């Protein structure tokens, strides 16, 4: 009889499911093998120890708590528990996501406030008469293909700003080049009523310069 068979017969005997054939085989094994007899004795003793280990009653308030939760599940949720509560709950479960979203929201708000504070109302992108833009300390902006030849250059303190308008069909784009260090504010404005003059204003350290340059917003000469 292999050790595996012995183990299976002992387990079945202890659990009360051994067949008469298994019982007979086990009886033969333990009467002829002291080690098998000792293993059987220890298994029976363990069985008694485990059976004597007491069960506990479920907590008295468990059923009430379960039924209360079930009742809450059936109740329609108030409006306040909508997407915002779900979002807050998901953030509390995933704090990294919460921090990332809070950071993004803060960054977005900051950028928006900065833009509003420095640019004023949004430009009318369809009509460039009122289009203006402000950049703070951008080293270079190039929104047009090369080849523009109408340009204006302004030197303000240590800064040199060049505005070039495209010649021959680059839409409404202009090219700005900035050289120099430190804070600088640049404003571009279409000047009414001609609709073909861009006013470049450069301000650095409280000093303001401005210059007009002709352009052709329809792309012709």
């Amino acid at each position, binding site marked *: 009889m292999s050790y595996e068979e012995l183990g299976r017969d002992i387990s079945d005997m202890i659990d009360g499911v051994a067949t008469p054939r298994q019982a007979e085989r086990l009886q033969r094994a333990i009467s002829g093998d002291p080690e098998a007899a000792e293993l059987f004795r220890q298994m029976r003793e*363990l069985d008694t*120890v485990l059976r004597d280990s007491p069960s506990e009653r*479920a907590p008295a308030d468990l059923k009430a708590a379960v039924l209360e939760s079930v009742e809450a599940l059936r109740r329609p949720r108030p409006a306040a528990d909508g997407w915002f509560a779900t979002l807050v709950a998901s953030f509390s479960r995933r704090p990294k996501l919460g921090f990332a979203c809070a950071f993004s929201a803060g960054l977005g708000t900051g950028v928006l406030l900065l833009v509003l504070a420095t640019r004023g109302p949004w430009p009318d992108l369809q009509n460039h008469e009122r289009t203006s833009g402000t950049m703070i300390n951008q080293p270079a902006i190039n929104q047009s293909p090369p080849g523009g030849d109408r340009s204006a250059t302004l030197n303000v303190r240590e800064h040199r700003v060049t505005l070039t308008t495209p010649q021959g069909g680059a839409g409404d784009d202009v090219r700005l080049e900035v050289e120099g260090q430190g804070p600088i504010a640049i404003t571009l404005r279409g000047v009414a009523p001609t609709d073909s003059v861009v006013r470049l204003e450069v301000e650095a350290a409280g000093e303001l310069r401005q210059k007009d340059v002709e352009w052709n917003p329809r792309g012709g000469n």
Partner: protein
Amino acid sequence: MLPDHDKELVRKTLAGDDRAFGELVDSCQTPLYNLALRLLGNREDARDALQAAFIKAYTKLHTYDCRYRFFAWIYRIVMNEALNSLKTRRRHEELDDRLPDRSDNRWSPERDSQSRLVQEALMRLPMNYRQAIVLRYWSDLSHKEIAEILSVPEKTVKSRLFSARQLLIRELIHQGVHAR
């Protein structure tokens, strides 16, 4: 509980009768609580796991297949909740390993040192052995029923029980714990 009675209670619950669900809870809460308690070794965790399991069972009741026995279905849910609870606890214990020892929260029936030794030995068993022993002794299930719950052949259940018993003999009988 008779299987047909279970199914009737399930049917009534699905029809909106929460009292029927209360009867289901009544009928199986004690063996399920002991299952969770012996798997987790902590009363508070066992209660939380069981409550979560009952709520999950309620919300998933429509997925229960009446061809199978209700107890096997809900035992599996409780076991999964207990395993989840163990995973969460391990993560927290890893995080809290510099905090003061939390062993006073664990289940230690001071009045009965033998029960304590049995529980400590159980907690040292590999989980699949622990499940087999707990289902056999504290849920009083047959090999066939254990096999159904664990989704393994009966032969595997017998083998796990035998191996678990061998380990427990080493942990308990060889350490001087004897039947009273």
